[in-house]
Every structure is written in C-alpha cells, then in structure tokens.
C-alpha cells in the first residue's frame, strides 16, 4: 500500500495506491492521518489506484474524516473503480463521506 500527497491550491490531495485491506491499512493508516489531519485543509482522496477496499479501510476513512471535520474541514473521495465503488455503496459510506466521479468534481465539492 502506497500513499502520496500534495496540494491543489488550498486543497490537500492524497493519492492511495494498493489494497485497503487489513495489511494495507496497517501500513498506511498513520501516514494517511498525518498527511491530512494536522494540516486541517479541505482534502480530496484519489481512490483510482485502490484495487480493494475492506471494512478496515472504511474505518480508516471514517476516523480520518471525523478528525478533519472537528477542525471544520471536509474530505471528499473520488476515482473509485467498480469493485471499490460497490463496497462504498453497500456500506452506505456516501451518507457521510461524499464520493465524486472525478477530481474536478471533488474539488468543487470541497470548495
């Protein structure tokens, strides 16, 4: 599991690549939170490189989004492939974390 981040204007952009399963979350969770929460910026998360999402990955997304929300900022996901999107919809995760179809749409949602 890999992660990188940069900024798009005033928005933090985080790119996740690999499997967000038990092992992948164990590797990336601390780095993911550290890249997003202390910064406190509105954040978009690119899921286009995520090939698998399990409940541990959903937990990571929720806990980080919650911590960011307490700083008054938003997190939006985008780029999910069919399998990852199916899990997101099955878990009804979009009730609390928006999922955009593209990066531009994600940027509009956090603006």
């Amino acid at each position, binding site marked *: 599991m890999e992660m990188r981040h940069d900024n798009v204007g005033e928005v933090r952009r985080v790119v996740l690549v690999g499997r967000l399963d*038990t*092992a992948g979350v164990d590797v990336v969770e601390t780095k993911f939170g550290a890249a997003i929460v202390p910064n406190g910026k509105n954040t978009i998360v690119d899921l286009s490189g995520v090939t698998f999402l*399990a*409940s541990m990955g959903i937990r990571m997304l929720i806990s980080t989004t919650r911590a960011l929300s307490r700083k008054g900022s938003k997190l939006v996901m985008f780029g999910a492939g069919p*399998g990852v999107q*199916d899990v997101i919809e*099955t878990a009804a995760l979009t*009730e*609390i974390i928006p999922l955009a179809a593209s990066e531009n749409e994600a940027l509009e949602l956090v603006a």
Partner: protein
Amino acid sequence: MANLVQNELCGLRSATVIDGRLELVLNNTLAAIEDGRRRVVEFLSSEPLGEVARHRLEMVFEELVSNIIRHGFTRNSGQSIHVRVARRPGLVEFLFEDDGIPFNPLEAAPPAAFQSIETAKLGGLGIALVTKSSTHLDYERLTPDAGGLGFSPCNRLAVSVAT
C-alpha cells in the same frame, strides 16, 4: 490432490485441490488473510469474473477470516480455520469452519445507519458487508458428534457469492 503445502510459520497451513474444490487450512495469524486470499484468487483465476464479483469474493474471504482470528480465537493459540471453496454455475460457495467461540453472523445486530460523520459507529461493518454481498448465508454450531472438517465443536458458515 494438488498444491499441497505444509507451513506452520505462515498463515497457510495447507492448501489442497480435491475434486475441483479448494481446501485451505489457515493458521491463527492475520497473515492467514493474505496467504489464503492468494490461494483463492489462484483457484478462481480461470473464472470469467467481473470486477465487482471478484471484489465481493475477496471481501467475503477477508472479512470472515479476519473476524474469526480477531474475535473468535484465543491469541497465539494453535487454532485453525478450515475453508472450502467450490465453483458452481453463477456463484462461488465458501464453507468456513473454526473452533473459536460460537458466533452466528445471522444474529449479529446490524450497525446503525450512518447519520453523521461525528456519530458514525465503526464496529460491525465487516459482517454487514458480508451479509449484503452474499446471496446465501447459513450458520451451524456443530456439536462434537456432528462431523465437521476435522475438529469439533465448531462454527460452520456457508456463504455463496454470485459471480
């Protein structure tokens, strides 16, 4: 019989294909999730699976093995999980057997619907995903004289996933 492995140190104790079915014995370690998953993916590699079906199959395997090891087993014990995987027309059948504490996922309370990011509960997501992503789910608690795949008493969970 093919693909037999013997390794007590990794997550996979044995993997065997018998009569077209994959039989796995997994050790009580989280490494069993990935070691077992690789065998399941290899076994199903000839199936024309779509992206959603492939993801659901891997998710069901991950969530159930993870749940047994985290919540059903005693840490560092020599307990094991027996998994049988069979291909059927239009679906894949899993059979999970373990000698952990009794747990019937059909009786598990579903997690509360998400209302807000502040109140969202993190527990119970895995079992709920399995329930919603499978076409059939059946649980038995086998008594010592009721069979099983090699040990008893045990939990037996049959799960079917559409392909």
